[in-house]
């Protein structure tokens, strides 16, 4: 660069003239008018003018004025050229103008910055003032953007509306225009947000609010959901095409609120097509869509889960009602009911795992629904009892019909365990189950595998304490078999032979495991007495310190009755056998004689005699031949009896023990409550009433739902028994008495 000393200083006036000329050329070029491009010398020349003017010695150093000039050029351009052009146009044409001038401006600023570059290097840096680029941008913002953004926004939103209504629009144009908003924020998103986004979201809000109102009236729930899903998809696409990504979450939330949240109740409860109907009609696609849509909204799934719960509860309740109605008209359908409930559970669990993606909220809803109707009574039987009876039937059938394959039994067992989880009176179930298990083990065929399988599953779910007694019972049966073998060995070796030729099998039950049975002082026929004695002898050898209690009410007997026509084998209970054997020595016996001889209770004897003389098979003749047994009757062996069968099983109708089971369970509950209360108080020492009650309920909830009144009464009882006392200052608080 030649030294400045050889030149005349360039005056501002002259310098500016040169610059203006350059600017004019520049604008013609960038506006696309016919103009030869800058030659390299011209380009350098422009730069040099500025440079020289800056380095001139004062008073000709013109950095300041040049800086001003730069700003002025752009300002003039913005105000006089750009803005008017834009203002002339409307609608989409205006947008195009804006977009076009925005690009031109960028180029203008870039070129001018090159010309005035020297300012950037020294003058601007030294003085800490805005750079040339910033000045350029600010100028555009202040003189163009600020004036037009409102209208631009209006047009943009109108176009978006058009697109929403299905028409095609110029997306690239919108993208450019919106980018302009972002750029004019000059570092932050404020301009974009305040000048465009806010308005856009408001407009979106009213748009979708209107749509929601009309769709909810016209469309079914599935149709509506499809439209909602589609709308969300379209809006997301909109973001990717021309909106700034920041807008996406706000936009999605907006649409979701209008289309899904505000109308949730109406939508889900739509008659014939709402959640309930979809569940009923197996519309898995629609339900999955529902889940998808609402899952994306925070806490959005809650109304769906509620609708689900209400539906399942209603279904369950109607099953219960059906069973109740059937029961009142005489048909007992308990077992059908259990099967139906199991099926219901499978059906709705499938929804939970498939459509509702195993979400905990729906598991919870299902559980709550089942807990409501599974604890209702039907025709006087509790669900606990029904379930126990159901199991009993399943196992009895399975044992008799070996063709049933194991997998169905296993899946039924799984279902039972699942259902039991919903029943609050689990201890009641356990007791009924135990009683029926005893019958199965002692009186029928049973499958050791099946019995053990369910017990293992119950143990896994409810703990060892729940199943320990029942396991003991099954084990007893196993041990009993071994013991019987031992007994037979003993008989052979001891050379006593079978007592009076009678085959005799004994099952030894461990008292604690089995339900309690009454003993009776039945006077056995002699043949049986011998059997008893020989077993006693054997048992004494095998074990010391154990007492045998004979339960004749549970035994059974095979007798051969020699009727005139032909002998028939009778399979009867021990009591019945004893009565029949009494006729071995006499033809005729009165009721009173039988009582004296056998030492049975009246209740038992009446039952037995009825089964032998008034029921289907009349092995005894009764005088008088009425339908009921009275104490003045007399009986005679009916030698004329015959039947085509050679073997007859005579069942002794079981005594209904439902009441007893409930009483026993109630008693156990009282002990359990006492124990729990004492345990809690022992560890806490002092506790207010409400806390004590709630902790007690919590502790016992695994087995049953304790009645609050009962807990209160047990507390009072414990006070009387000096385990607890009331605090003298505050009678609502209890203290443990050591």
């Amino acid at each position, binding site marked *: 660069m030649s030294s400045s000393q050889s030149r005349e200083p360039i005056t501002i006036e002259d310098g500016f003239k040169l610059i203006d000329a350059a600017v004019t050329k520049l604008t013609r070029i960038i506006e696309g008018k016919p103009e030869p491009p800058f030659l390299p010398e011209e380009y350098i020349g422009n730069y040099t003018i500025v440079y020289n003017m800056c380095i001139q010695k004062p008073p000709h150093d013109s950095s300041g004025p040049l800086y001003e000039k730069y700003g002025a050029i752009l300002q003039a351009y913005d105000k006089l050229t750009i803005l008017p052009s834009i203002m002339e146009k409307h609608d989409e044409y205006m947008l195009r103008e804006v977009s076009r001038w925005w690009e031109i401006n960028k180029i203008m600023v870039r070129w001018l910055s090159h010309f005035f570059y020297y300012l950037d290097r020294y003058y601007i840096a030294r003085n800490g003032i805005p750079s040339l680029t910033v000045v350029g941008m600010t100028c555009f913002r202040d003189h163009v953007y600020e004036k037009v953004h409102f209208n631009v926004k209006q047009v943009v939103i109108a176009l978006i509306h058009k697109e929403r209504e299905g028409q095609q629009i110029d997306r690239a144009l919108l993208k450019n225009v919106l980018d302009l908003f972002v750029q004019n924020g000059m570092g932050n998103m404020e301009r974009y947000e305040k000048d465009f986004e806010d308005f856009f979201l408001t407009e979106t809000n009213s748009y979708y609010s209107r749509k929601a109102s009309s769709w909810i009236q016209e469309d079914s729930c599935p149709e509506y959901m499809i439209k909602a899903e589609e709308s969300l998809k379209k809006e997301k696409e909109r973001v990717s095409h021309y909106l700034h990504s920041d807008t996406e979450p706000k936009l999605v939330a907006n649409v979701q609120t209008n289309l899904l949240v505000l109308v949730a109740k109406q939508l889900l409860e739509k008659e014939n097509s709402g959640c309930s109907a979809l569940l009923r009609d197996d519309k898995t696609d629609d339900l999955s869509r529902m889940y998808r849509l609402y899952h994306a909204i925070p806490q959005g799934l809650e109304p769906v889960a509620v609708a689900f719960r209400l539906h399942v509860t209603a279904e369950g309740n109607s099953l219960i009602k059906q069973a109740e109605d059937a029961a009142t008209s005489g048909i007992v359908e308990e077992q059908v009911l259990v099967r139906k409930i199991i099926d219901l559970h499978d059906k709705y669990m499938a929804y939970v795992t498939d459509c509702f993606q195993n979400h905990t909220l729906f598991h919870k809803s299902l559980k709550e629904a089942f807990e409501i109707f599974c604890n209702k009574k039907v025709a006087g039987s509790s669900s606990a009892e029904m379930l126990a009876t159901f199991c009993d039937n399943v196992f009895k059938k399975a044992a008799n019909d070996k063709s049933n394959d194991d997998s169905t039994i296993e899946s039924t067992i799984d279902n039972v365990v699942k259902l039991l989880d919903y029943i609050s009176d689990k201890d009641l179930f356990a007791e009924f189950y135990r009683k029926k298990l005893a019958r199965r083990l002692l009186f029928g065929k049973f499958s050791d595998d099946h019995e053990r399988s369910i017990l293992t599953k119950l143990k896994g779910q409810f703990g060892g304490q729940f199943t320990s007694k029942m396991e003991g019972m099954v084990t007893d049966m196993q041990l009993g078999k071994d013991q019987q073998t031992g007994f037979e060995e003993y008989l052979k070796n001891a050379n006593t032979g079978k007592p009076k030729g009678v085959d005799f099998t004994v099952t030894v039950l461990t008292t604690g495991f089995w339900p309690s049975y009454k003993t009776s002082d039945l006077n056995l026929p002699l043949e049986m007495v011998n059997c008893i004695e020989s077993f006693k002898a054997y048992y004494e050898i095998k074990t010391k310190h154990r007492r045998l209690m004979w339960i004749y009410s549970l035994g059974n007997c095979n007798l051969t009755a020699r009727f005139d026509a032909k002998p028939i084998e009778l399979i009867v209970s021990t009591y019945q056998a004893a009565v029949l054997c009494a006729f071995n020595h006499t033809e005729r016996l009165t009721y009173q004689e039988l009582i004296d001889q056998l030492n049975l209770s009246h209740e038992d004897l009446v039952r037995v005699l009825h089964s032998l003389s008034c029921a289907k098979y009349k092995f005894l003749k009764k005088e008088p031949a009425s339908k009921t047994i009275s104490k003045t009757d007399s009986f005679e062996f009916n030698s004329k009896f015959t039947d085509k069968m050679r073997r007859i099983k005579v069942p002794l109708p079981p005594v209904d023990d439902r009441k007893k089971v409930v009483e026993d369970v109630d008693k156990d509950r009282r002990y359990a409550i006492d124990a729990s209360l004492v345990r809690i108080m022992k560890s806490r020492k002092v506790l207010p*009433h*409400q806390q004590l009650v709630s902790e007690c309920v919590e502790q016992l909830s695994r087995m049953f739902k304790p009645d609050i*009144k009962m807990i*209160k*009464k047990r*507390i*009072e009882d414990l*006070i*009387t028994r000096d385990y607890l006392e*009331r605090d003298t200052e505050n*009678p*609502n*608080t*209890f203290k443990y008495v050591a």
Partner: protein
Amino acid sequence: MPPRSASKPSKKRSNPDSVTSSATGPVPSASSKKKASKEVDGTDKLFDKYANASSGVIDPEGIEKLCSSLEVPHTDIRILMLAWRMKAERQGYFTKGEWRIGLKALKVDTIGKLKKALPELEKEVREPLNFRDFYAYAFQYCLTEDKQKFLDTETICQLLDMVLGSTFRAQVDYLIDYLKIQKDYKVISMDQWRGFCRFCNEISFPDMTNYNLELAWPSILDDFFEWLREKQA
């Protein structure tokens, strides 16, 4: 005297208005002669007047005589208060020791003085702290067997009337009605008994608006509350 439990034969009540025979006159001359001697002697002599000669204790008959002397009904609460003062252990009987304790505490040695001391005694017993103790004592006193923990509802009704009747007439009347009608409770424990007193003291009546079923009131009071609510509806 509070009536005894059913196992003991009931004594007929003495007519509160009757003036009794000279044997148990208001101011027995015997004691006034002894006034000059030691107080203890006076007390003892007084004791002997009412005591059963063979058993050496004042028995139910003697107590009846005492009541007449004091011109106090047989079932009056003041006799119970006296028993409390004496720390009498066995219902219907006062031992010599108990008699001495009681009369000494009251600072009396004649029937006249004793009679005059009764209002003072009543005032003392009705003080809140004393009353609490007295109230519990009333229950305790009626227990006759060794390990007995409950009193039958009939006894309770009479006790309630005697002990709380004057202060809480309405509550007591309703409670008694309820106890007679209900079938769930045949006997009452000490805790329940205490509950009655607390109820009368704390719960506004008859609206019972501040009664709370969630609190630790004995169940019998919960049942009473519900019964009364139903009646009022």
